[in-house]
């Protein structure tokens, strides 16, 4: 079954330190991968998707098909990055998007 795994429930990082949120998926085809973010008291929203290859708010994510991973990275954490982050996947030929369980990122001052 297609699955998205985020191994860390909570990640605490000092301000200014690098951030890496891990995401692995199990799917043999060509998935489309996303990162969604939920800031405190806000709704869930798209942060970035692998096909756009953009850097959003300093975050990047590279799809590694060999390792079936889509880790989210940022070189220097900021306090406003504290949020809940969800990795999500849509497999080719399908419309539904499935989500991982999420990682809470806590930026320490």
């Amino acid at each position, binding site marked *: 079954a297609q699955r*998205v795994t985020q191994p860390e429930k909570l990640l605490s990082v000092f301000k200014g330190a690098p951030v890496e949120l891990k995401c692995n998926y199990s799917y043999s085809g060509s998935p489309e991968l996303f990162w969604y973010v939920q800031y405190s008291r806000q*709704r869930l929203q*798209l942060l970035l998707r692998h096909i756009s290859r953009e850097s959003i708010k300093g975050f990047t994510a590279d799809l590694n098909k060999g390792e079936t991973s889509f880790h989210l990275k940022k070189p220097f954490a900021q306090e406003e990055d504290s949020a809940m982050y*969800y990795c999500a996947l*849509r497999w080719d030929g399908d419309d539904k998007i499935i*989500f991982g369980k999420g990682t809470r990122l806590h930026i320490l001052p």
Partner: protein
Amino acid sequence: DAGVTQSPTHLIKTRGQQVTLRCSPKSGHDTVSWYQQALGQGPQFIFQYYEEEERQRGNFPDRFSGHQFPNYSSELNVNALLLGDSALYLCASSSLGELFFGEGSRLTVL
């Protein structure tokens, strides 16, 4: 544009009752998806509606049903409520593969 709007925001039901949740998609969006998010979990896909038809369905029992209206708004119905149905129910409309979420309806089943 108010974005995706959901109602009610909170509700409490007892076991065995039925509930209807409502969703209005973002302007211009014709596809609506429903997700269940239990505490501490990621959103779980329930089903998706497009052109008033259920296009896809996740691993949820038939007690969960839905509807989409000609104006693209949607309803989620849950019959014979169980304690385990307590969760945040999220509606999302989509355009070009991106999901736009509402703030959710928090259902508590006692």
